[in-house]
């Protein structure tokens, strides 16, 4: 019954800054887990050639949550991931602040890295969030 335990999922859309230290502090890993991979996506100071001061994110929230659930289900079928936590900002995110934070917990690093990258790739393909650079 190795797969009886459902992968834990945690998704938040928030207009507040992402408190990464607090999130890391809140990590929970069972004794069989050996790898935690994190990604933090930070707003850069330019889009193309133009300097910007922020990016405004808009989300179709109900669909965002559902599409993440579909991605998570695919990950759960493919890798032995114990949990995924994900926070995405909505609204105005100033340059140098994180717009996306992801944590993936798995037994080994290979699957944690693979699942984390797959999650972000799929998010950028199907999760209905849009950005508008603010000059």
């Amino acid at each position: 019954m190795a797969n009886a335990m459902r992968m834990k999922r945690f998704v938040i859309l928030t207009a507040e800054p992402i408190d990464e230290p607090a999130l890391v502090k809140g990590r929970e890993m069972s004794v069989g887990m050996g790898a935690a991979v994190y990604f933090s996506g930070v707003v850069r100071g330019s889009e193309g050639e133009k300097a910007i001061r922020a990016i405004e994110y808009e989300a179709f929230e109900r669909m965002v949550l559902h599409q993440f659930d579909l991605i998570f289900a695919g990950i759960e079928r493919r890798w032995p991931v114990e949990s995924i936590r994900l926070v995405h900002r909505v609204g105005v995110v100033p340059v140098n602040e994180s717009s996306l934070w992801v944590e993936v917990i798995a037994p080994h690093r290979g699957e944690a890295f693979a699942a984390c990258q797959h999650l972000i790739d799929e998010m950028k393909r199907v999760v209905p969030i849009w950005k508008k650079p603010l000059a």
Partner: protein
Amino acid sequence: MNIRVTFYSYFKELAGVSAVTVATADGATLGEVFERLLKDYPRLEPMRKSTLLAVGVDYQPRDYVLKDGDEVALFPPVQGG
């Protein structure tokens, strides 16, 4: 039947509205509603190929048969992260 349509991202600006209700014949497909919207909001026409279409919270193909009360969403390619 009535289909509620919501526009996201710059599709709101192109359409000039954020949502609209479309009256269609029973059995209309998502593609038929989309064509109607491209006529009503011609500034969306250049986005024809890249437009993403959802019913409720799921992507659906153009031949999806709509039911009364379905909520349709139209939006450009997504850009999360």
